[in-house]
């Protein structure tokens, strides 16, 4: 896979194309799920905090930390494994079955390098950006839901956000985002590139790639948490 590109300009063009497909293409779903994740976690946290001794700012802290540590990187990446992963696997699978990959090989193009590398690179560039966006939108969603349901005022929420903030959590979330981005792009690429058969097999390999990616994301989530959060 790691050979000198035949034409750097074409690889760059393909990378930009994939960034648009993966990054911009997933923007809508990421915005929607992030916003509602934050909103729901604010409402549910307030429902569970029954003691009057616990300050309302705690709701904002819990929303902030759950969104940054888990919801934004893990849940968003699991959703992206479905959206982006199935797209990558079916695109490559269709190219394989319809001999488009063979056509590129015959032209003298390193197909693994030309077709897979830009997808992995595009995921590594765009998915962490989407995760950061998801963090912000999740927190904003919690703020709006808290104010709309009169659970806590926006001022209280804002105060809770800055209390006991640990910047390391953002670093940890980004480490997870990069790891999951690689999983989301590489596993479907493998299943798509090596598919054999016809339309049915493309569907099967696409489904399998999403399932394997989700399991690997959860496994990697546990390993990273054990390695990086274990005091």
């Amino acid at each position, binding site marked *: 896979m790691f*050979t000198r590109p*035949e*034409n750097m300009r*074409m690889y760059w063009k393909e990378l930009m194309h994939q960034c648009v497909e993966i990054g911009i293409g997933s923007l809508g779903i990421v915005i929607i799920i992030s916003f509602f994740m934050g909103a729901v976690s604010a409402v549910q946290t307030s429902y569970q905090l029954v003691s009057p001794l616990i300050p309302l700012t705690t709701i904002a802290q819990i929303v902030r930390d759950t969104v940054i540590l888990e919801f934004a990187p893990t849940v968003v990446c699991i959703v992206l494994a479905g959206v982006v992963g199935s797209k990558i696997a079916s695109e490559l699978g*269709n190219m394989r079955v*319809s*001999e*488009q990959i*063979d*056509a590129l*090989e*015959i*032209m*003298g*193009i*390193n197909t693994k390098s030309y077709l897979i590398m830009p997808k992995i690179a595009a995921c590594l560039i765009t998915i962490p950006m989407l995760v950061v966006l998801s963090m912000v939108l999740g927190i904003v969603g919690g703020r709006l839901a808290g104010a709309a349901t009169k659970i806590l005022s926006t001022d209280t929420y804002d105060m809770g956000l800055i209390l006991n903030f640990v910047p390391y959590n953002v670093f940890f979330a980004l480490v997870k985002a990069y790891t999951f981005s690689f999983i989301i792009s590489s596993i479907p690429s493998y299943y798509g590139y090596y598919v054999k058969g016809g339309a049915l097999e493309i569907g099967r390999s696409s489904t399998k790639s999403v399932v394997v990616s989700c399991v690997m994301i959860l496994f990697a989530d546990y390993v990273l948490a054990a390695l990086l959060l274990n005091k």
Partner: protein
Amino acid sequence: MIFYNPLKYLESKKNSAGWRIWGMIEFKNIRKSFGEKVVLDDVSHVMETGKANLIIGQSGSGKTVLQKCLVGLFEPDEGEIIYDGMSFTDMNVDERKELRQQIGMLFQGSALFDSMTVEQNIMFPLDMFTKNNFRDKLKRVNEVLARVNLEGVNKKYPAELSGGMKKRVGIARAIVLNPKFLFCDEPNSGLDPQTSMVIDKLILDITREFNMTTVINTHDMNSVMEMGENIIYLFEGKKEWTGNKKDIIFSKNERLNNFIFASEFLQDAKDMRMLEAKGKISDDRDMDELLKGDKLD
């Protein structure tokens, strides 16, 4: 570059008989199996320059596998493939990449890139391997589209084209870099007889015009009779017969005859052709009368 040493380069231009030939493909003792199943067994032949070289045989006889071995999509288990005197089997990745820019291929399903327009499809090899500006590339695209009689479809997507048009776009893309070798995998599959003839004629004309070595996989008898200048007939993975379209008529190979003249009508036509060649029947024969009669011997 493929050729680093000038002496080795000149030496490489000799075939096994010592003749220097450009654009020739020679394969020796090719053997390929998938698991227990032997698909190609000791197949050797020479594909000649400037000719339409046909690989014919029934479905499952190993035609496609042989062609895929020749272009490097499959690695043969044994044997040697020689392009222009250079062993393709021994080439490293970079040398193969260099050689492949001399190869064009028309796939059975055309293998056009779905997400690209006709113009982008044909321009793709130019974008990848040349430093020409857009105007020059567009000029070349229009030239090859005109050559395959398909002007004015630049902005259409493959899904908007008919089967015959897709094949012609596939041919245009295959020849856009002026390759020395053209491979066609069942160019007529899925086409009506009239369109098939147009595609066959186009491939033959291009082969002669650019003096290319064209290798065609087919089991279409019209193609065999139209283009068969150098034919290899495969039967169960082995080379059964070799010759040209004229030799087929007079061949006594039973397997070949059963394959080529599968219908009774074609068998009768062959018999008549043989009698005509021997001067036993005249050109102004009554076809209906002859076909009504007993089988000729």
